[in-house]
Each structure stands twice: as structure tokens, then as C-alpha cells.
């Protein structure tokens, strides 16, 4: 039965008429499902086949409004089907449904042509929001704890819910515009709630983002998800810390790559560390 459920639907959202081995699906369904006075075995199995696809497509549709807007609903749906065919859900929760989407977009660039780079940026940004929403947190340390330690020995962990992204498109502003233009559709959450085939939504078109380097930290503060634009040196310090470098080494390597020598880096970096600690981004690795 599972094989039947996971098989993609026809373009008109029906169950495929031919089974994978060439037999008719009608014959296969009749072997294990009873018909009743109103529905054939095929039709009864088809209800489940449709429910499966509507449920998972609905979920990606809700979780990736940015990517869906970039590609258009029809192209997005085709991509989602191809993705789920290769990577069906392997988690008890639909929250994780998109966890291999970025990987798939890299493996199969045709689905997003000619906007592959933009699509990947968007998918990464949208997945980072999921992680920021309910990803694990470690006990954060504050600025005073950092000051008491010597910078060339201090190693800081970055919260697992925090994602640092280097992107070629300003997808952060774009996603805000997309969400504004869409009314808040909430996913049916529970039990046997039924889902319908994906439909295009009627709303004001949002202009696609222009090519522009942006460095982002996607995080949460007081349990709200935010994304914060970072300066190049800021981004470099944080990524170096993420790799396990000491605070001194991270600052040094970030500045050595920086061409901006006219700034008061000591003051700036101190402010950054104050802000990051106030946001709760650091923990002490054991």
C-alpha cells in the first residue's frame, strides 16, 4: 500500500492507471482492497494516494512561500513532487520535510532554471527560519563572562538555532514582501485534517530580488524569528567562531582580510560582542 501512496499523481491529481511493473493499477488495487457499492478498489486507494500528496505538498507550499513565489506555484509544485519522490519524509514531523531541499536543488538544477542561484539562496533562508523557530538552544553566556576570559584562549559556541548565510540575493527583504502580500493561511494541524490540491494564490506580484551580496544571521530573540544583516568583518568573526577558532584568532583573521583600516576596530568589535551576547548567541562549549 505504501508504494501506491508514494507514487506521484497524474497531472489531473488522479492515481496513475499503470503500476510500476506494467500491470494496471486497477488490478493491483483489487488484490488487496475491497470495493464497496459506491467505490471500486482503485477509487478507494486513490483517496489515500491523493491525501498523501496533498498533505505533503500543502506543507512545502506553506513552509516555502519565497521559493514558491520565485518559481510560480505550478513550477514549484513540480519541483516539490520531484523532491519528495527522491527524498520522502524520514521524520515523524512535517517540520523536517524541507531538510534536504537545498541539497536537491543543487543536485537537480533543471527544476529551478534559469534562477538556480536565487532559488538556492531562498531555500537556505527559508530552512534557516525553521531552524530558528524551534531549533535547540544551549545555555547562553553574557558579555561579562566573555570579558573575564582571555581572548586568545576563549572558544565560544554559537547557538544551534543560529544560521549564518552568505547570499547573492537580498532574499530577506523579498520574503518580507512576499509574506505581506499573502494572507496568513494556517496549516490544518492535526489528526485526519484533509488537504486539497495546490492552487495558485491571487495576490499582488512581488518583484524578484536583485543580485546583491548579503550576509545574514537568522536567529530568534524572545522566541521570535529574526534575520539580521551583518557587515563582512562581523560575518567573518562569527563564521570563524563557528569553526571553533578562539576569539582572538577569529578577530585577527577577520580583520586581516578587511581592507577597511580607517575604522576603530577595537570599539566596533567590542560593540558587536556586546550585541551578540545580549542576543544570546554564545554558549561555552564543554
Amino acid at each position, binding site marked *: 500500500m505504501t508504494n501506491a501512496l508514494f507514487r506521484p499523481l497524474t497531472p489531473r491529481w488522479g492515481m496513475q492507471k499503470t503500476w510500476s511493473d506494467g500491470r494496471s493499477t486497477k488490478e493491483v488495487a483489487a488484490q*488487496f482492497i475491497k470495493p464497496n457499492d459506491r467505490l471500486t478498489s482503485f477509487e478507494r486507494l486513490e483517496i489515500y494516494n491523493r491525501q498523501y500528496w496533498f498533505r505533503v505538498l500543502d506543507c512545502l507550499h506553506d513552509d516555502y512561500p519565497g521559493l514558491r513565489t520565485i518559481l510560480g506555484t505550478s513550477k514549484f509544485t513540480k519541483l516539490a513532487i520531484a523532491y519528495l519522490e527522491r527524498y520522502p519524509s524520514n521524520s515523524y514531523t512535517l517540520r523536517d520535510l524541507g531538510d534536504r531541499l537545498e541539497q536537491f536543488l543543487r543536485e537537480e538544477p533543471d527544476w529551478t532554471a534559469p534562477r538556480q542561484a536565487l532559488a538556492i539562496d531562498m531555500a537556505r533562508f527559508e530552512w534557516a527560519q525553521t531552524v530558528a523557530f524551534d531549533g535547540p538552544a544551549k545555555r547562553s553566556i553574557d558579555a561579562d563572562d566573555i570579558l573575564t576570559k582571555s581572548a586568545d584562549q576563549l572558544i565560544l559556541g554559537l547557538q544551534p538555532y543560529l544560521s549564518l548565510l552568505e547570499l547573492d540575493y537580498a532574499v530577506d527583504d523579498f520574503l518580507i514582501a512576499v509574506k505581506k502580500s499573502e494572507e496568513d493561511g494556517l496549516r490544518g494541524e*492535526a489528526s485526519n485534517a484533509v488537504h486539497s490540491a495546490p492552487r495558485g494564490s491571487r495576490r499582488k506580484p512581488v518583484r524578484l530580488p536583485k543580485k546583491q551580496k548579503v550576509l545574514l544571521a537568522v536567529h530568534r530573540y524572545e522566541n521570535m524569528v529574526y534575520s539580521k544583516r551583518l557587515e563582512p568583518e562581523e560575518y567573518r568573526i562569527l563564521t570563524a567562531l563557528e569553526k571553533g577558532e578562539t576569539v582572538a584568532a577569529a578577530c585577527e583573521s577577520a580583520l586581516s582580510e578587511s581592507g577597511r583600516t580607517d575604522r576603530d576596530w577595537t570599539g566596533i568589535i567590542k560593540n558587536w560582542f556586546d550585541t551578540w551576547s545580549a542576543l544570546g548567541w554564545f554558549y561555552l562549549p564543554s
Partner: protein
Amino acid sequence: MPSNEFNGFTDYGIGIGLRVPHYRHILAKKPVVDWFEIISENFMVDSGRPLEVLDQILEQYRVVQHGVAIYFGSADDFDRTHLNRLKRLVRRTNTPWLSDHLCWGSVDGRYTHDLLPMPYTFAVAKHTAEKIKAARDFLEVPICVENVSSYAEFHASEMTEWEFLSEVVELADCGILLDVNNIYVSSKNHNFDPYDYVNNIPHHRVGQIHIAGHSKFEKYILDTHDHPVLDPVWKLYAHAIKLVGNTATLLEWDDRIPSFDEVHHEALKADKFRENVIAAR
């Protein structure tokens, strides 16, 4: 049997499903609600907003956990991460009992996220009961299994759905979450008398009842949980209450969720209804 070992000897009244669109209203207005049912999986996260809301709810209300992904009927072994997280949540909520569905939904680690019907055979009943027992021993909380609505039946079945349910709960020595809407939906889809179903299950094992609305299509009924409760379901509910007693009842409303007040109003109807039935007994 309002209070029994399957609902942790509690005497809960009418509960409402805790749903995202109602969070703000509930936390701000603090309406009088006997208890909230939560979907366990929505709160089996590491941290963040869902747990913050849950903790605020727990400060004021009693919460019962209802799951959608244990899949007692799947041939697969339990997903250990899932069970560990579930146990952590059980400790957090102090749920007096826990429910999930008599169904399957995953195979070889692939998840359908659906509640799929099982072939009603003795072998499947035994396997399912063993998984229920193992889950209860691990989670250390009474378990009630819920009958799902279905749209298909298998040639392999050796008994009716209610015989299968009875067989499983007897073997597992667990409780029943009796969903009267699901019984009604399945009775239409499979041409049986829903009263036969309700009459022929072990009544002393019913720890909780679900009522809900559904959608009617031309050839079958879908359990959509997006309407008020319909008349025949109210009648079946009254019949169930007569047989099993004044049991904790939850009104399910999962899709096209109206305002909290509207759901609350429907739930209060259930309360009145229940009182009348009990008074007339």
C-alpha cells in the same frame, strides 16, 4: 466509567484542542476550559515559541497529550528519537493519559504523515498490542488508542473493525479513545451500523471520547474536522455516553478553524448534552 485506570483515574469534563490561531485569545482572555488537548508532535521540539506557549498554558490549564505519529500499527520498530522526545514532553505536561491512533503510517523509515487503516487480522492485532505495551512501559503513562476513520478495507481482514479494536485493547490491556465521528464516517463508508460498533466494544476501557464535524462528498465521507458536529454524531455520542458513562470528551476542530468563541460554544453544547444524557440515565 468517567474515571478509570486508562485515563489515570481523572474526571475531566469537556476539553478543547489547543490550536495556533487561538493562542493569543487563550493567553489574553484566559477562558474557562476544563482541559486542553495538545498534539504531542507540535510540542516535541527542542525549544522556542511552541514550548513557551505550552508552559504558559500549563500554568493555568490541565493538558492531555494526543499524538499522531507513534504508529502502533506500523511494522517498523519505534522511532527511538520520537519516543524519547515524547517522554520528555510527558514529563513536562504531566498528562494523566496519552492517546494516539490505531493505525499505521510509516514503512522502512519513510513517513506518510497519514493515519492509515490496518488489515484486521489476529496477527496484526498481536503485533500492535505488543507495541502499545512497549510504548506504555517506556513512557510510564496510561495509553488510549483511537479508532481512525477509513475509506478502504482490506481483503485480508478476518474481523470487523470493532472486533479488531477490542482484540487489540484487550491484548494490550490499554484504554480506548472512542472517536464517535470516526465511527460514523466509517459506518457510511463501509456500510455498517455505527451502533453495533459502539455496543460491542469493552466499555470499561473507554478513557476518552472525541467528537468532530466532517464533510460529505457524493460517494464517501471525509473526516475533515472542519465543521460543527452533525446531528447523527450527537446522537451516537449520547448513545456512547449512556453505555460508558460520563467520560472526558474532546471537541476536535482542525481545519478552517473558527474563532475560539465559536469552538468554545460548540464544546459547551457537548457539556449540556452530556449532562442531559447522564441525568436521563
